[in-house]
């Protein structure tokens, strides 16, 4: 009996030593990744020119801001705002609908979802029945 137990123990020891991979080594890891957000930039270099075809409209041009942003063109009749009229575009140029006589002030800002940039520089045009300057 004692011999049998001893022999069985010996077999167990040998089998264990000879097969360490039988154990399953598992662990875990924790930590973090990081990410940074960009900043939406105001358009620059806004200029305006008159277009007298099909009524008096104003064509605006500006330098691009972020490549991933669109633009909101805004205008009104008060220098510095408010600018109650607006239109959206993905281009860096925009022509307004025909405007009635008056002095108009224009700005452009970049937009992507809820991200809005500051206004560009302001430009203006004076529209009269016969001229646009």
């Amino acid at each position, binding site marked *: 009996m004692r011999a049998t137990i001893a022999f069985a123990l010996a077999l167990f020891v040998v089998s264990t030593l000879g097969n360490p991979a039988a154990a399953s*080594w598992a*662990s875990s890891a924790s930590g973090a*990744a990081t*990410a940074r957000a*960009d900043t939406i930039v105001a358009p620059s270099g806004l200029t305006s020119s008159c277009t007298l075809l099909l009524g008096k409209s104003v064509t605006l041009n500006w330098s691009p801001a972020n490549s991933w942003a669109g633009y909101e063109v805004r205008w009104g009749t008060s220098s510095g705002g408010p600018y109650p009229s607006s239109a959206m575009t993905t281009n860096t140029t925009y022509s307004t609908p025909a405007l009635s006589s008056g002095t108009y002030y224009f700005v452009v800002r970049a937009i992507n*979802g809820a*991200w809005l940039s500051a206004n560009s520089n302001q430009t203006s045009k004076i529209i009269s029945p016969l001229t646009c300057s």
Partner: protein
Amino acid sequence: MLRSRRIAVVALTVVAAIALADAAQAFWTSFGSGSAAAQSSASIDSIIAPDTSAADLYPGAVMSVTVIIDNPNLYPVVVNSISAGSSEALTSPVCAAGSVTTDARPADPTGLEQSGGAKIIAPQSSGTYTLTTRMLATAGNGCQSRTFTLPLTATITAAP
């Protein structure tokens, strides 16, 4: 005379048998006894550290980031899965929690591929893993120019 000889033979046989049994027992005893030495190492948890950061996220953007996972153990390992990550809420200005996320790397019992294609992390070495990161299209204006930390966990097993 003959009887006494017979008795002697029987006695000798018995003695021999006992001696042999003892020897066998001794043999078994010596074979079965002794000490075994086995070295075992408890598994050590790993650390996930940022490597390259997704730069210049904007609403709706999808980009890549990489993380480094180390193997402090004395045996090679594979990373079997990496959890999804989600940014915490930021204040001043407000940027809602979950504005930036990373996709989970689905579980693979054979191990996830590192950025270079290998699966196994050598003992006391590290591996680099690529994750897809996204900014919500509805991310608020307060999320501009911010740095986001995305907590992650991973499961690791010994390399087959």
